[in-house]
């Protein structure tokens, strides 16, 4: 079989375990480094931040990334879902992505920096007498970039796209990646590494099946859009002429999309009518026990964040760590699922919309999505349930705000781990990790693979896809690495001295 020097061959792709000689035969340059993080987004950032604070030096870490900065993908998705830099995220004040200690939180920093004591009062009274304080996206990005510079992030980044992570025949792993075209003398390069950290984020946005089918069948990508893809033309059109829009989903993204639509009515004179379709419609609190009951009303299930707060570090975390199999999956579904934040301004807008008739709710399964006979609009038929007859809605746009995620196998490197390295799936079909985010079944000699973020949902920790969850995973992985002889444990003394350096923005 012909081998192109500097590239991989099909034979190598089909071989699960690689040797140094295999890569030499292919002319692929190999570099040694003990720790490689794959991804380069916020998951990689929080891991590397923790390691650097633990004393691991720049030359011991490489991050393979095609991003310009760690927050790039996050910013893109947040911006598409209508959270711009001056809007607030759904994140706790003490989930401080640029500060592993979580103090001072975003609220205190905003109160101090902007001289707004009301913000400090809000965090003092939340959630009892005020909505949860949440930070502005811009503040989060800005402080994250500051911390990235402090830990010399760019010096650790190897620009490129990871193609394969494979076991090495004599222990450890190869991380094979494609550097940007023209930046290297070979098409592929590889790291030979003892520890691999996978933080590749969402496998991808997934559409509701009926909407995907509509888009493909009718080649209509303008009127049926996903909230996570660029869709500003929808809002622009609705400001130009009276339109009807159908929104699907009842989570935080749907909340924000509805706010944007009603803000445009309030501030720009849009005459938009909103039809909001609920597949499930909680009319009252969810749960049959007084000690396990989530507030819900008018179709929305409410909690401050995507899981109850104690999932990040309290009795819910403890409970989840004790569960296995279906019990764990069911519990994660019960505390998570579709829910949104109880914000007073959102409720006021929807109540007003309902009273004035520009916000209509309907419930049931969508039966069909087709163009109207005159092709000017899209017709959605919502099936009847509980004696409610089917109803059809003709709308100018449909926004899919369900926030569905793709299958992890859609991610090439994750698929590689599943098929060639011995990783398995957990009860929710994601990557199966231990309580310390060590990927089960992938050890190789002294080598270990870890994973954090969205791809590990279904494991022993619920809030994996959050700032605090990423920091928690990083700390657990750090402790595991210390056990394997990599880095020094961050104990009280080091913790204090490093916090002082962080507070003074001293480079480390």
């Amino acid at each position: 079989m012909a081998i192109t020097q500097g590239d991989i061959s099909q034979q190598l792709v089909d071989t699960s375990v690689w040797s140094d000689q295999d890569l030499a035969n292919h002319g692929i340059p190999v570099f040694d480094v003990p720790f490689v993080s794959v991804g380069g987004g916020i998951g990689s950032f929080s891991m590397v931040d923790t390691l650097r604070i633990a004393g691991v030096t720049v030359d011991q870490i490489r991050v393979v990334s095609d991003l310009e900065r760690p927050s790039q993908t996050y910013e893109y998705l947040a911006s598409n879902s209508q959270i711009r830099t001056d809007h607030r995220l759904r994140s706790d004040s003490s989930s401080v992505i640029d500060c592993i200690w979580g103090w001072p939180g975003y609220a205190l920093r905003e109160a101090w920096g902007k001289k707004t004591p009301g913000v400090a009062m809000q965090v003092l009274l939340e959630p009892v007498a005020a909505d949860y304080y949440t930070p502005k996206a811009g503040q989060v990005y800005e402080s994250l970039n500051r911390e990235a510079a402090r830990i010399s992030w760019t010096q650790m980044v190897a620009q490129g796209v990871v193609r394969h992570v494979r076991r090495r025949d004599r222990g450890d792993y190869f991380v094979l990646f494609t550097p940007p075209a023209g930046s290297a003398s070979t098409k592929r390069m590889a790291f030979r590494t003892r520890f691999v950290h996978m933080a590749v984020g969402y496998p991808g946005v997934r559409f509701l099946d009926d909407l995907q089918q509509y888009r493909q069948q009718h080649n209509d990508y303008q009127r049926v859009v996903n909230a996570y893809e660029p869709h500003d033309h929808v809002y622009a059109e609705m400001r130009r002429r009276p339109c009807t829009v159908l929104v699907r989903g009842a989570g935080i993204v749907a909340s924000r999309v509805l706010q944007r639509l009603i803000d445009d009515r309030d501030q720009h004179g849009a005459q938009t009518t909103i039809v909001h379709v609920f597949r499930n419609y909680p009319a009252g609190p969810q749960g049959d026990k007084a000690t396990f009951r989530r507030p819900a009303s008018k179709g929305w299930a409410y909690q401050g964040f995507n899981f109850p707060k104690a999932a990040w570090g309290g009795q819910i975390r403890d409970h989840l760590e004790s569960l296995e199999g279906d019990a764990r999956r069911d519990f994660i579904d019960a505390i998570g699922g579709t829910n949104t934040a109880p914000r007073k301004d959102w409720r006021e807008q929807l109540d007003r919309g309902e009273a004035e008739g520009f916000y209509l709710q309907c419930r049931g399964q969508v039966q069909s999505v087709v163009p109207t006979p005159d092709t000017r609009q899209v017709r959605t038929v919502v099936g009847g349930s509980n004696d409610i007859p089917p109803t059809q809605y003709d709308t100018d746009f449909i926004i899919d705000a369900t926030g569905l995620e793709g299958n992890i196998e859609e991610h090439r490197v994750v698929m590689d781990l599943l098929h060639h390295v011995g990783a398995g799936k957990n009860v929710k079909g994601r990557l199966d990790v231990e309580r310390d985010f060590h990927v089960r079944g992938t050890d190789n000699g002294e080598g270990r693979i870890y994973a954090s973020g969205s791809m590990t949902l279904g494991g022993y920790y619920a809030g994996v896809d959050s700032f605090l969850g990423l920091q928690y995973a990083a700390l657990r992985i750090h402790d595991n690495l210390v056990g394997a002889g990599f880095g020094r444990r961050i104990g009280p003394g080091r913790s204090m001295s490093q916090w002082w350096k962080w507070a003074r923005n001293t480079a480390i």
Partner: protein
Amino acid sequence: MTPTLSGRLQSRIVLLGTVGIVWTLLIGLVVPRPEGADTSGVYKALFTALLIVAVVGIVWELIYHALQQYRWEKDWPTIFGLVVAVPEGILAWTLLENGVPWDVGPVQASTFLTMFTTLWILIWAIANGPLQIVFLRWRYRGGRFIGGWG
């Protein structure tokens, strides 16, 4: 905060046993005292109050933990940490005045109030952030120093 029961108990004992002792020693120098009262008498009263807050606090924590079960988030909002000082303070003062666990002689309400209020706010403020600078894993462990990790 999202304490577990064990975390509540551990945090109370550790914080009162460290910050509490140091602060009581310091505040004892400046609290209002009856004319002619000697320093050892004042310290006896103050440290007895500290002991009451620690020991009776175990029962309080059991009550708080039970109440927390009725919160969906299984959290303990920041403001709760301040508000509960009122019933705890009243009970601690009542016990102190009635010679429980032992007679400490006449104590001015202002003496007790100064010590109790300042100490409570200090510990509340430390537990709501700065403690994490020293004990990085504490918040994930639901307030525990021992257990709940690994």
